[in-house]
């Protein structure tokens, strides 16, 4: 196991290096992703946390080259998947990676399924395309997959249209589609945000089970630290287009270094506090991403900030004592 872990570290499944995605917007350029780097070992679960507008979704879509070309103002960096730079691949080569090796689950299951196609047809499509299955085999596989993701009476459901299913059921179908070709990496972009709390846990558990079963790596994106908490091996916190802290999940929860992460943790309601305790909120708002920012991006909202923070941006670094705990702060917690 240690040997396996070592080789895994030597050749990461996904190695994102200094990814930059600036988008065109009516008012100018939005620096949605501004120099993000991270690695993912095979079978590892990385939780990516950040508030809305921090660039999580743009980043997730950029990994697979799904950002509409006309919307990109500037893009650079490398997305190495098993050593191959996906950003340098042509559209044709990229299509063989999408779905087959890397699959995605989207936030809203209400819109992630085509309303005029049966779920069976939508499941069969990528399997016929990538795996060359015939109509019959694809249908049989589709029913198996529906069964695996916990859809009752899959033989009947396979010919249903998306509007016949509830939100949670639809998200199961979306998951089944994503897993249909046995990807090595699943990018789950806020997979439970649009669902009821009770259903959320079920879907997250299902993703966990499938991850375990298929030994695939997962990038679990959420605005909610709690969602990612018990399920990720490592957590990366994103703020204003940058990763501001990255460490093992336990370390992030027990000893956050970046004041932003600390503030996020404190803004979660806790049951051991008396009722009607006022929730702690982070004052202010994230910076607009349309201008070049000077200094630490969290400085305007940070209680520890001083002139240095406002003029000079700290690099993503670590202490010698804990080389795997990366953070971006001059005055760590």
């Amino acid at each position, binding site marked *: 196991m240690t040997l396996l872990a070592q080789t895994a570290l030597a050749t990461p499944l996904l190695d994102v290096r200094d990814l930059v995605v600036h988008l065109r917007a009516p008012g100018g350029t939005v620096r949605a992703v501004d120099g993000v780097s991270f690695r993912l070992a095979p079978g590892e679960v990385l939780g990516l946390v950040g508030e809305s507008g921090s660039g999580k979704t743009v980043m997730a*879509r950029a990994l*697979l080259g*799904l950002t*509409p*070309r*006309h919307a990109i103002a500037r893009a650079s960096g490398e997305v190495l998947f098993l050593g191959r730079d996906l950003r340098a691949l042509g559209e044709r080569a990229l*299509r*063989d*990676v*999408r*779905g*087959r090796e890397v*699959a*995605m689950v*989207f*936030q*809203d299951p209400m*819109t*992630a*399924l*085509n*309303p*005029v*196609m049966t779920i069976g047809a939508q499941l069969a*499509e*990528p399997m016929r*395309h*990538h795996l060359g299955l015939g109509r019959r085999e694809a249908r049989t596989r589709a029913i198996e997959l529906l069964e695996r993701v916990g859809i009752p009476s899959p033989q009947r459901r396979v010919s249903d249209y998306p*509007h016949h299913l509830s939100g949670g059921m639809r998200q199961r179908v*979306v998951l089944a*589609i*994503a897993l249909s*070709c046995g990807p090595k990496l699943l990018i789950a972009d806020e997979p439970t945000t649009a669902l009821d709390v009770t259903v959320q846990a079920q879907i997250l558990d299902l993703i966990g089970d499938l991850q375990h079963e298929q030994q695939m790596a997962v990038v679990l994106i959420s605005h909610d630290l709690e969602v990612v908490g018990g399920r990720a091996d490592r957590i990366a916190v994103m703020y204003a287009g940058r990763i501001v802290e990255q460490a093992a999940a336990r370390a992030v929860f027990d000893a956050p270094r970046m004041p932003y992460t600390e503030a996020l943790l404190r803004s979660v309601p806790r049951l051991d506090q008396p009722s009607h305790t006022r929730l702690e909120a982070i004052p202010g708002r994230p910076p607009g991403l349309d201008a070049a920012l000077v200094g630490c991006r969290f400085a305007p909202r940070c209680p520890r900030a001083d002139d240095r923070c406002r003029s000079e941006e700290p690099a993503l670094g670590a202490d010698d004592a804990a080389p795997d705990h990366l953070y971006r702060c001059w005055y760590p917690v």
Partner: protein
Amino acid sequence: MPDLATVAPASGAPAPDASLPTAGRRRALGLSFWAPAAWIALVAFGAAFAAVLPLKSPTRSDFAHIAAVPGTGGHLLGTDEIGRDILSRLVYGARVSLTVGLVAVAVGLVVGGAIGLLAGYHRGKTETVLMGIVDVMLAFPALVLVIAVTAFLGQSLRNVTVAVAIVAVPAFARVARSATISCVHRDFVTAARGMGATTWRVLRREVLPNAVLPVAAFALVVVGVAIIAEGGLAFLGLSVPPPHPSWGSMIYGGKNKLADGTAPFISLIPAGVMFLTVLSFNVVGDHLRSRFDTRAGVL
């Protein structure tokens, strides 16, 4: 009318349960839909079976009854200024009107729809170029274009159809483009691309089925416009050559007797038929469009 045939059974089913709460989702289609639909069916039936119906010749004159009032001399709707049977000419003329209306619109739908689909999907340069061409076509005076086409290619049913189709293309391109844009950014399109679907497949399986309904409803309205366009061309003598009947040329033929009041029905009957037909296409198109709109809302 295949469009109507497919719509009829689907709408017929929920109609009797108007009291059920589910009926609120789909309003029942009343007389205001079925009466125009029946009229279109009647006109289409006449056009299709004109040759086998017990009609008098549409081109031979009955010199004993010239400009005969409807119901006289064995002519149900009377005869025109040179004694030809008006009913027969109306039925044969429906062939011209419907051919131009349906074929020109079908061509416009396919060509304009393809342009709009591509422009809406590939934003940026492709869109700029395609929509630039479309805007130039829209800005060009339609009548001048049509006159140029028929003058250059000669007068025939085919050429009139081609001319009207050319005019219809840019309108369809615009409608198809906006319908495409409205669904291209929905997640399921991105999801399909994320699963490795080719552009062609995304357009065919994801975008087209979701964009086709509003465009198809618009097409029915354009059928009416195309029929009027053919009528206008016939009035100017630019449609099918005489003695072949066309509603527009019939109106033109009776204009003197309309002006002096001796036999106004020669112009008024074909004008009324054309009015009813165009109105019917518009009403049916409107009904179907509102139906598709509510469906889009439910989904």
